[in-house]
């Protein structure tokens, strides 16, 4: 066997090696000598991956390029020059396609290409964008296997040694260590996102222990505030927000548990590989951990196009395009976040710059082929969650007619037991109402069968009420029939043009004789002979006007629904019953309702059975066909499993991405992964082969296509990707995360494009340090992010001052700041501070500014977790998108005083104040925030109501804590700038406060550059 395999390998080798020239075949020589030069010199400018734009979609730099061809189909048909578009074009045969457009090829060049095509167009070239070299020394830096470099000789810990080596090589002297005050403000903001309070600062300044700084770092890493800070960075990176972000910008009520998951994970210092695995496949890898299910919030973090994916017709091309775009968001989020690759650039063609093929891209789409976004149940504990998973699995198997589940012994018994209970024949008595009203003014006309036919104007919403005197002594259930009628659109039973109806709520009231108040009767066990997908009868009792029962597409026929009374009711003679049919969804009114009542004794279930099941029950088991047995088993088991699921301890909901989720209209889970095709040029109308789940071919240590035992179980695909991402030998993952953490402390990563380690991205400023950190983090810190933070912030490099010593001087005039000599020298070599000769100042982020202001004003509340704070007034909108008004928010309310990580994030209407400070809206992955300086930002800080109100609170606090103006000004400086005022400042600010009050003073300090920037 081994021998045979070896022989096969050898036999195929010459083909693969042809292009290297050593063993070039005659065909290869023909190509290399006569064809390639012509193509390169005369065609590639427009028709290759080196072109700005591949004209007409035709690339001639690979076999695949010309065989797929461009807009007009294959360019070359091997052996048939006369039928090959390429040859026709260079011969200038067709008036509208003559190539090259300006200077025709020479007859010799034309002849060379003709000969080539005639001989079968042998093309030994590698695909243009296949790994240019996936092994060897030319391998792109990010793909090279991780090997920990030796630490250069030098002072301090390894980070400092790597940094010092480069500085020395460039002849740069680093700035001195920052003073303790500066350092404290820096480390508090960097690790917690908050400044130190004057008391915390004082404690550190007075701590004379040699490990005072290290101790402080440990305290901060242990603070729950640290998880909040880290979570916010992660939310940027994965574009988390809490509405859908399109024209139907619906609120995601259950997105926030993912935010809490992040905070808790960072605070618990969850190992990074586990953190990654949970967010890609936590449901399958850790089924007993409810939080691992919450982690799947990552896959659903981004925008979602509700109109396209839920509301338009399912059979449209727009819907199918929407699915590809939806998966693209998942692929992009996972791969950019965890591997810093731009795989999404290979959607329409092979990646132009990196060794990522279009096939790789669609392999990743296939990983998510069974994933949808929606509300998922989780918890409350591992056992329940496991049970729910099992029941859900069996329910899915029942839907898919899996005989192993349908005819399992236990299932057979369930069906038998159920059947033995179905003996009672209910007798329904039709109600004859004497009062019947349509609130919207539709005409209800009594029919001979005591149904009521609606006509006249259909209200945009309507409520029908029917009142009758009861003829029964006892009431146990009621029935609503909706009947067909030729006068209705599609023959009804609804009045909507498509024949559908939507019943939002069904209520039953009783008026015993002499009673003045109605008694609302509690209804239960609603059932219907048919439910429109997502519009089940249960919605009529859920108390929500927005949900309803519908019957589409089974129009043109009668349907019925039955409701049981929770407790049978004795009806004194003369009791009046009122039936209320609330139809509030918009149109969709019932065309011909009829009501009935019964006094049948419990426990007989009054449920409505479809006609088919009623017939089956009348047929003895021995006479049933196999198909009928399947039908009956599915019907019974579906009910039984659903009831068991309902009886489980209540689950919580998280908006997440996975194979199963609560259906929402026509957006529902797919029983198995949807087929994903490689789309030529990314176009839905040009599907090619079906994609197999996999990842990147360029990570050569790992298989690029997954071998799955059960590939139709979508979760196995995600599990495979999660494992691929967290393999020791995946160099991308480990480099990516250490770079992100580095960025958090220096404002810029060692690679300044954290989402792109490819050829279009930046290259590492200190490649050896990056690799050293990646290996250290993986092998020694075992993925502990807190250890990584500690290592970085305790380095001398991190502790450097922003500048060399500068003597405090006169106010600088704009534009004429003199630069100190040593600063000028260092800038001349490295103005961008890529070599880290100083710690460049960082502009505070929106959340840091807002949280710091709240802390300073004394209003900050540290309560953690739970639903997000809606810092706006929310009213129903004219359609799906609610109306949001940030001006109508009560600034002093509870929701306005928690940390900004708990703010509700509304995609299409972000908070204008935070927006002006560059807080991302959650539309795009934001691994690096902008830090702009703008006029709008100045206006926001100067005039926004939040700053004005907090200025008043700070003023009140100052007045409480200090009695004299001088003391109040000093305290204001300590609170906002972490330092006492210098003498001239003290004088000027006291004068200002004396004239305009402390609140105006606070407003100034909140607007100062010194507050806004972190040295």
């Amino acid at each position: 066997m081994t021998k045979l395999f070896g022989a096969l390998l050898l036999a195929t080798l010459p083909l693969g090696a042809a292009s290297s020239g050593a063993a070039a075949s005659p065909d290869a020589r023909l190509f290399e000598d006569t064809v390639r030069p012509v193509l390169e010199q005369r065609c590639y400018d427009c028709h290759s991956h080196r072109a700005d734009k591949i004209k007409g979609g035709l690339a001639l730099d690979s076999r695949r390029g010309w065989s797929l061809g461009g807009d007009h189909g294959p360019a070359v048909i091997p052996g048939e020059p006369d039928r090959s578009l390429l040859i026709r074009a260079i011969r200038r045969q067709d008036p509208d396609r003559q190539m090259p457009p300006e200077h025709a090829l020479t007859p010799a060049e034309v002849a060379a290409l003709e000969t080539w095509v005639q001989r079968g167009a042998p093309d030994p070239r590698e695909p243009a964008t296949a790994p240019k070299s996936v092994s060897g020394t030319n391998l792109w830096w990010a793909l090279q296997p991780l090997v920990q470099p030796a630490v250069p000789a030098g002072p301090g810990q390894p980070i400092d040694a790597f940094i010092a080596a480069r500085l020395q090589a460039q002849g740069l002297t680093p700035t001195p260590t920052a003073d303790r005050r500066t350092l404290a403000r820096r480390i508090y903001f960097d690790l917690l996102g908050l400044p130190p309070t004057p008391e915390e600062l004082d404690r550190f300044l007075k701590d004379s222990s040699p490990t005072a700084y290290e101790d402080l770092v440990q305290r901060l890493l242990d603070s729950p505030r640290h998880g909040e800070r880290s979570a916010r960075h992660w939310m940027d990176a994965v574009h988390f927000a809490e509405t859908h972000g399109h024209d139907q910008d619906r609120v995601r009520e259950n997105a926030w548990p993912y935010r809490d998951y992040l905070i808790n994970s960072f605070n618990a210092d969850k190992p990074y590989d586990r953190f990654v695995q949970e967010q890609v496949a936590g449901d399958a890898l850790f089924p007993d951990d409810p939080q691992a299910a919450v982690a799947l919030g990552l896959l659903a973090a981004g925008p979602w196009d509700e109109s396209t994916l839920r509301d338009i017709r399912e059979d449209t091309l727009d819907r199918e395009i929407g699915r590809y775009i939806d998966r693209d968001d998942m692929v992009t989020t996972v791969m950019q976040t965890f591997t810093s690759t731009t795989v999404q650039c290979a959607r329409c063609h092979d990646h132009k710059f990196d060794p990522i093929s279009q096939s790789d891209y669609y392999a990743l789409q296939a990983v998510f082929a069974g994933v949808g976004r929606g509300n998922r149940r989780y918890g409350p504990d591992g056992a329940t969650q496991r049970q729910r998973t099992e029941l859900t699995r069996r329910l899915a198997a029942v839907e898919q007619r899996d005989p192993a589940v349908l005819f399992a012994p236990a299932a057979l018994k369930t069906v038998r037991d159920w059947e033995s209970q179905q003996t009672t024949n209910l007798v329904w008595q039709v109600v004859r109402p004497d009062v019947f009203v349509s609130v919207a003014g539709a005409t209800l006309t009594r029919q001979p069968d005591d149904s009521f036919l609606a006509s006249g104007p259909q209200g945009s919403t309507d409520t029908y009420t029917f009142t009758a005197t009861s003829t029964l002594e006892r009431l146990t259930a009621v029935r609503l029939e909706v009947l067909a009628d030729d006068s209705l659109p599609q023959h009804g039973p609804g009045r909507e043009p498509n024949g559908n109806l939507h019943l939002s709520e069904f209520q039953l009231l009783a008026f015993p004789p002499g009673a003045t108040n109605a008694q609302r009767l509690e209804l239960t066990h609603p059932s219907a002979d048919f439910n429109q997908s997502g519009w089940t009868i249960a919605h009529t009792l859920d108390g929500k006007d927005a949900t309803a029962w519908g019957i589409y597409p089974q129009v043109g026929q009668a349907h019925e629904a039955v409701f049981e009374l929770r407790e049978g009711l004795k009806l004194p003679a003369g009791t009046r019953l009122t039936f209320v049919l609330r139809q509030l969804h918009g149109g969709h009114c019932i065309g011909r309702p009829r009501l009935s009542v019964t006094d049948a004794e419990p426990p007989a279930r009054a449920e409505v059975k479809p006609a088919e099941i009623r017939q089956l029950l009348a047929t003895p088991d021995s006479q049933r066909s196999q198909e009928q047995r399947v039908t009956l088993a599915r019907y019974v088991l579906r009910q039984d499993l659903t009831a068991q699921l309902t009886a489980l301890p209540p689950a919580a909901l998280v908006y997440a991405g996975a194979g199963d989720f609560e259906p929402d209209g026509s957006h529902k889970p797919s029983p198995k992964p949807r087929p994903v095709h490689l789309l030529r040029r990314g176009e839905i109308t040009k599907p090619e082969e079906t994609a197999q789940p996999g990842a990147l071919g360029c990570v050569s240590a790992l298989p690029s296509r997954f071998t799955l035992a059960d590939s139709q179980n979508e979760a196995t695909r995600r599990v495979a990707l999660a494992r691929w991402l967290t393999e020791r030998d995946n160099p991308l993952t480990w480099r990516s995360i250490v770079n992100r953490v580095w960025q958090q402390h220096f404002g810029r990563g060692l690679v300044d494009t954290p989402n792109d380690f490819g050829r279009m991205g930046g290259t590492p400023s200190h490649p050896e340090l990056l690799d050293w950190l990646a290996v250290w983090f993986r092998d020694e810190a075992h993925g502990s992010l807190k250890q990584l933070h500690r290592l970085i912030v305790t380095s001398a490099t991190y502790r450097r001052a922003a500048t060399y010593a500068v003597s405090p001087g006169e106010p600088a005039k704009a534009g004429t700041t003199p630069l100190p000599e040593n600063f000028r020298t260092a800038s001349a070599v490295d103005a961008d501070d890529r070599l880290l000769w100083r710690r460049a100042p960082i502009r505070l982020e929106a959340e840091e500014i807002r949280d710091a202001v709240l802390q300073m004003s004394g209003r900050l509340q540290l309560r953690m977790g739970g639903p997000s704070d809606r810092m706006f007034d929310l009213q129903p909108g004219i359609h799906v998108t609610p109306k949001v008004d940030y001006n109508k928010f009560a600034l002093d309310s509870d929701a306005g005083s928690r940390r900004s990580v708990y703010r509700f994030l509304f995609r299409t209407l972000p908070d204008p104040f935070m927006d002006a400070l560059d807080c991302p809206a959650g539309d795009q992955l934001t691994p690096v925030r902008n830090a702009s300086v703008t006029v709008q930002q100045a206006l926001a800080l100067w005039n926004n109501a939040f700053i004005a109100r907090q200025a008043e609170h700070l003023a009140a606090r100052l007045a409480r804590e200090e009695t004299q103006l001088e003391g109040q000004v000093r305290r204001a400086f300590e609170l906002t700038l972490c330092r006492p005022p210098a003498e001239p400042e003290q004088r000027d600010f006291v004068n200002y406060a004396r004239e305009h009050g402390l609140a105006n003073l606070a407003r100034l300090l909140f607007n100062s550059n010194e507050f806004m920037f972190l040295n």
Partner: protein
Amino acid sequence: MNPPTPRSAPASVSPRREFLGRLGGGLGSVALAQLLGVDQVLGGDTAPAVGRPTGIPLAHHRPRVRRVIQLFMNGGASQMDLFDYKPELFRRAGEKFDPGAGQHVEAPTSEPGRILKPQFEFRQHGQCGRWVSNLLPHLATCVDDLAFFMAMASRTNVHGPASYLMNTGFLLPGFPSFGSWVSYALGRLTDNLPTFVVLPDTRGLPYNQRGNFSSGFLAVQHQGTVINMGGPTPIADLRPPDSARFITPAASRDGLALLQQFNRTHLGENPGDSRLDARIQAYELAARMQLSAPEVLDLQGETEATRNLYGLNAPVTEDFGRRCLLARRLVERGVRFVQVWSGAGGPTNNWDNHANIGKELPPMCAATDQPIAALLKDLQARGLLEDTLVLWNTEFGRMPFSQSGEGRDHNGGTFVGWMAGAGVRGGVAYGESDPWSWKAGHNVTTNYDFHATVLHLLGLDHGRLIFRHNGADRRLTDVHGEVVREVLA
């Protein structure tokens, strides 16, 4: 290279000015002007080359247009009821729609109905003989100045993605809007007002709300400033809130002086950081904007004749007319890009006429027709059309067959847009739809082509207006777009 602005960049505030970083934190006035985005090229004769890697955003060639007013009809204006006259629809009204050749017919939200003929009369107008229905009598008098795109096509039939596509060039949220690209590329013409202003329908924001005028991954200074004519505070944060009584004019004046002095001292101690200087400048500019903005919003200074021209004297035209007039005042004072919206999001009060074209379309036309014609005439009379471009757009068109009898469903297959003003050849109609106005026929204009054409008029090569984001070179025109030269004067 255009990486996102690092938080610690010593001298580059806006990514487009990243090259300044390599000048060693230069703090001269030119650098500051760059930081804050002042127009550096227009009016000069030079056309600086724009290198692909840096994408330094100055004009690529001599521009014909300095400012743009875009009128956006939210909801999908019905092309065959306004401009795209199709006798075939009258002839075959009530028949089943069958385009032949086995072509699949579908509608995004409904079952395709029978062919629905326009209920409006069409006549030819002007020297060019352009067909316009009787819903737009005022605009019909301007057709010789308009260049029509008769066969525009969208990639989608859904409002959200289609609105994003027409506004940002992508189907998804998070990409910079048209006005933001123009701001990013060309900077501002005035210190006193924002560069990109949006005037939404006073009844509400359009589909996608502010997503349509977001700066995406470009710096926030390029985002559209919303002026809400219907609200108590038309421009957010222009002045302190009424609730903050302690902020008196004197406290602000003295405070700003002390703040600037304080910031300058801080700058002296933190040399080599132009962001600190830029913030000082930003507060001075903000103070100027506080003074200029109220003046531009005050329409009382306009003559009675002008106010009546725009229809401010009639309830039906007052709202849109007011915003058209304001648009003129804004561009007159140096705003670069103004977007005026007709129609809010949601199912009604916009151009999304699913239920009954005959009832829903006429009021939208009545509200906008006179003001738009007035805007064109007023700009012309004041000489502003010499360097101003007016655009009329919508996110997609509507179907030739009915939805539920009287309405029309969305149709990305073909729709109409027009432009007028500087550099535009009036009276042209580019492209043609099929005989039913169902799909674009020949000379199709995509959103990419339309944007490329406008950018061209602004002196910009759409293929070279680039911003690197998350590893991809992003453009308003994605990887597509051809300038439609047939409409250029």
